């Protein structure tokens, strides 16, 4: 047998070697996948447990959580949608997150454009101030602004939350936008300017469409920040039932109905859906966006 292999033609040997390499590559990919699968199972265990157990009747849940339920029912979801204020919280959360995202896109888009295209001294100073405010403890704002917003009569309205979320996301989003704009050639706008666009229209008609992926990344960042934020919401939005967001509502629900495990888990599962879908849709752009914005920033 060994003599036959040693006497095979070079072509056959080459094929055997490339087969071996392909096999090695595939084996490597498989090992990697298995490692990642384990990592994924560990990281997502709390979520998997939540989702699975939310499908079990509360009596079963009280006996302990499990990965392999015997009985499944949608009762918890029906209860949550009919008997709790979850729809209100959900609407509030989505509204606040969407408005925040809109304002963040406008403010950080303009600022990022300015930092990318107009390299003046003021802009350099401004950019380092912005970097410093990335580290700004938001609690510090909350106390002083609590006094101010009480005068305005804005407590228990979505206004303070929206404004604060925009400010919280502003430094990072501006960086991301700046990185994206830096990667778009200036000549395109200059051509537009020659053709008679003002600088604003040039930005709006030429640069913005090209910065689409960057905008998507910024949008999901701003959305997630506003959707999940807890402290600002609990300072400004917790007293009135009708303005509570999901985290605040859920927190009150947990305190009030300590035994309704099924419903709590159902709320948690439902609350996790929008971010999951959003991230899945734009994850590629998000990573590109961070690459362009954060690395060079």
């Amino acid at each position, binding site marked *: 047998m060994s003599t036959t292999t040693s006497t095979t033609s070079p072509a056959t040997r080459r094929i055997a070697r490339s087969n071996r390499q392909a096999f090695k*590559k595939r084996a490597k*990919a498989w090992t*990697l996948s298995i*490692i*990642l699968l384990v*990592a*994924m199972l560990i*990281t997502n265990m709390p*979520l998997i*447990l*939540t989702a699975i157990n939310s499908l079990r009747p509360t009596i079963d849940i009280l006996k302990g*959580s499990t990965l392999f339920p015997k009985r499944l029912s949608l009762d918890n979801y029906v209860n949550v949608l009919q008997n709790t204020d979850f729809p209100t919280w959900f609407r509030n959360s989505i509204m606040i997150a969407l408005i925040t995202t809109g304002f963040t896109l*406008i*403010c950080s888009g*303009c*600022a990022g*454009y*300015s930092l990318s295209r*107009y390299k*003046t001294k*003021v*802009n350099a100073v*401004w950019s380092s101030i*912005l970097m410093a*405010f990335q*580290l*700004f*403890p*938001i*609690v*510090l704002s909350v*106390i*002083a*602004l*609590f*006094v101010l917003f009480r005068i305005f009569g804005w407590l228990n309205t979505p206004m303070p939350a929206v*404004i604060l979320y925009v*400010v919280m996301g*502003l430094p990072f989003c501006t960086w991301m936008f700046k990185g994206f704009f830096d990667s778009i050639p200036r000549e395109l706008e200059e051509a537009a300017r020659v053709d008679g666009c*003002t*600088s604003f229209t040039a930005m709006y008609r030429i640069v913005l469409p090209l910065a689409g992926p960057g905008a998507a990344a910024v949008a999901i960042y701003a959305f*997630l920040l506003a959707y*999940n934020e*807890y*402290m600002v919401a609990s*300072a400004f939005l917790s007293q009135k039932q009708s303005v509570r967001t999901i985290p605040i509502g859920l*927190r009150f629900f*947990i305190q009030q109905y300590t035994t309704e*495990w099924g419903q709590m*888990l159902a*709320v*948690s599962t439902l*609350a996790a859906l929008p*971010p999951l879908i959003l*991230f899945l849709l734009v*994850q590629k752009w998000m*990573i590109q966006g*961070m690459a362009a914005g*954060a*690395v060079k920033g």
Partner: protein
Amino acid sequence: MPRTIPRSTTALDTESDKQKRRFGIESRRSLTGWTFLLPASLLILWMNFYPMIQAFILSLKTGKGTRLNFADPLWYNYERLFHDDVFLLTLKNTFIYLVIQVPIMLVLALILATLLNDPNLKFKAFWRTAIFLPCAVSLVSYSLVFRTMFSNDGIVNDALLGMHLIGSPINWLAQTGTARFVIILGLVWRWTGYNMVFYLAALQNLDYATFEAARIDGAGPIKTFFYVTVPQLKPMILLTAIMSTNGTLQLFDESWNLTQGGPANTSMTMSHYLYNLSFRNNPNFGYGSALSYAILIMVAILAFIQMKVGDKRD
């Protein structure tokens, strides 16, 4: 609002001629630049500068609720911080979290990002989303699940009992050490994916040729990681380290939702204490503001040190 000059003006237009003379082309350009910065600047002035000054004035005052007077020695609130046992305890807790959690999390994130960046890997979108997911989930939901998992008859105790690692169930959230452990675990769990996205972004910007060269020179995956990947990612590692340090110093969510600061404040963070001071029972805005300044100063000092250290290793 600075005035922008309409593009349609002609040379005969004297009004615009005057303006052109007053602002040269350069300053006209920078005016447009400032206009773009305006919305963001106004927001920052209003939401960052104003509260900063306001909080500083507040931090010099004492009193309950809205009836505030300037303190007798003006720095009374700051002096009080040094004698406040709860503050010193929360300071210690926060630094324990910082020192243990940030390095573990960053190393894990870096390893995961390297694995995910492998060109042979299939279904990248799925893996990325799966690892990122914890950070996209509301912390109230996750604290709920964590509390169930670590309860007396929770899945963690069951598993440990099943493997005969412990004799009787551990009351995780009621003991100082284990409560801190749960918080650290929660932090690592939630933020590793977030930092991984940053590393992944940076990895995709690297020149693949450097890895090829390392492979040809006979470096294995581990050597490549330490001598090729890590040095090239240094700016990103610095950025994530500063962000995580900052996040940990301002940590509120985990302490508030997972353990409520208990047992006996031994897992409480500074921000949680600050929140209690300012918004629970007897709000003391003056003292709270002094505490928030203390946090701001610590954040600034640590960020400065990290930047200096990061620069030196070049």
